[in-house]
């Protein structure tokens, strides 16, 4: 543990054949005390996500905020437009706040519009995408991570990381292969 690895490598990548093996391995890596790890899988695996990326994603809060802003904006625009700035008597509809029910459809649509765009954009941005380059892509056979292979990476910046010991530890978990990933 003393000889901490120099950051010339990104980390150690273990490839597993099945999601079940990855789930078991992730569990053991977590139990061994590693904290800076990531898994790369062809589909979301709940058990792995719980181990690797627990906690808050930050997306729901932003979406709620955006929904409220959208609704407020939608309502205010209608109120200013039809009640204050350009009041027009159409079918005797009240030219005051009493006319709020007629403004609900557009208020609702603006809320959904802003919230939905925020959900998608905040997901992409908080994930650090678009990111055309990432060290993980240096791992051999990483093109299978989007198809049929399951990768677990312990990053070099993990306090417990040791090139030899960590590598041996990963090998004992039964992967197809363990490789060092260039930074």
């Amino acid at each position: 543990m003393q000889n901490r690895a120099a950051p010339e490598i990104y980390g150690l990548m273990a490839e597993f054949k099945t999601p079940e093996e990855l789930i078991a391995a992730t569990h053991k890596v977590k139990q061994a005390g590693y904290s800076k790890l990531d898994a790369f899988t062809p589909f979301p695996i709940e058990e792995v996500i719980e181990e690797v990326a627990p906690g808050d994603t930050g997306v729901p809060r932003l979406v709620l905020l955006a929904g409220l802003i959208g609704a407020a904006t939608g309502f205010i625009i209608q109120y200013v437009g039809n009640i204050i700035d350009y009041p027009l008597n159409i079918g005797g509809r009240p030219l005051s706040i009493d006319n709020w029910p007629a403004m609900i459809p557009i208020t609702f649509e603006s809320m959904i519009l802003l919230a939905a765009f925020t959900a998608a954009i905040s997901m992409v941005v908080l994930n650090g995408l678009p990111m055309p380059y990432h060290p993980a892509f240096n791992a051999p056979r990483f093109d299978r991570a989007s198809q049929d292979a399951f990768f677990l990476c312990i990053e070099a910046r993990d306090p417990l990381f040791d090139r030899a010991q960590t590598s041996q530890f990963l090998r004992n978990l039964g992967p197809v292969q363990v490789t060092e990933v260039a930074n």
Partner: protein
Amino acid sequence: MAQAQPLPTKPQPDTGEQYLLPGNTYTSISRTIGDVPLVSPLQTPRGWLLGFTIAFLLLMLYFVSIAWLFIKGVGIWGINIPVGWGMDIINFVWWIGIGHAGTLISAILLLLNQGWRNSINRFAEAMTLFAVACAGLYPILHLGRPWLFYWLTPYPNTHGMWPNFRSALAWDVFAISTYASVSLVFWLVGLLPDFATLRDRATNIWAKRAYGLASLGWRGSARHWHRYEMASLLLAGLSTPLVVSVHSIISLDFAISQVPGWQVTVFPPYFVAGAVFAGFAMVILLMAPVRAWYGFQKYITMRHFDVMAKVMLATGMIVVYGYFMEVWAALYSGSRFEEYLLFNRLNGPSAWAYYGLLFCNAVAIQPLWFRRVRQSIPALIIISLIVSVGMWLERYVIIVISLEREFLPSSWDLYIPTFWDWSLYIGSFGLFFTLLFLFIRVLPMINIFEMRLFHFQEQERLHRREHGGHGETGRDIVTGKSDPSVASAD
């Protein structure tokens, strides 16, 4: 589960019990679905070329119809007073209704945790987008001065004027533009991990670059998946009320007016059910040939058709209830005009449309009560075709029959669609199918990553059943299961 095996070739009998026929691996799923769009342009299937050519010719008819409309104005259509809304609005409502099944499948079934939606949601969502594109153009085209359509939006202008936000027609603008944008975003978010699969499978450098650019550098990190799943769930949660609101607002175009037959409070739910009804009919009509052409029977099984037929039957019966409510409302209203409308529907010059709609939407769907019918592709195609016609007739009945004989007998007149009414309608199929053919050519028509997830869940379920209910989670099943022979393979 061993993905090194060759692709399974043995055909599995489809008993109509399963959503995913056995014999899949993560590799086979990624290959069979992912490689369809990656075929070299020179090896494009002949059938695709033929279909695309026909669709493209129809699209040209659409453009010609629009060009002539822009030159001559809406007078080329059969609309006049009293029937100011003709096939333009009938087709608008018809197309947007078809789109709603896609959102139902992608959003509502996601919230209800229905795994079977994974096989059909991408295709159905694409159908939604293209149907909304067809629908959205109609109200603009019938504006009379379509180039001024942006007057409907609140934009800073030197006229010092604002749109009338308290009109249902302004609500329409917001509802449809929101629906189109949110559907597009939802669809693109769903495509993101699949773009990464295509990037990694593509051998052509340009295809690799194009899909790589679209994938935004997606690498399947667990952190990313976490946010991704949350965002998908939120988008589904937002789309669900959205889809209900959109067709409700469209029904309000009619329901908040005073025209006999339009001023019915049952309209919003009845329109939403009718939309889903027509949409599922269209999904069946499109899925049946596509799964046969591309050999996707393994992923889109008879069980899928069975449940889709059930949804069609259920929503169809809601629509039939709506018809009863319309009759009841007319009889109970005490209004001469409403009563006369009912009489006119049953005995008037356009009564054929009303009887046709009752046959298509109420009678023709009754065989769906039987499992044998629900599991027969030819029967489903015939019923879906009848339903599609029936839902078109429903809008014809609502719009045209009501307007033909409004309040003043002196202004009664018949609506007769012209050549340009029909050419614009037939041409809109060109727009729809051109986009659809392009979609199945360049994008994976089944959501690949969700199919892998579905395969994983099915395997876990199978495993649990084999082990007699022991081991509630996947983790328990597999602990210590790793094969030492695999470890030494390194």
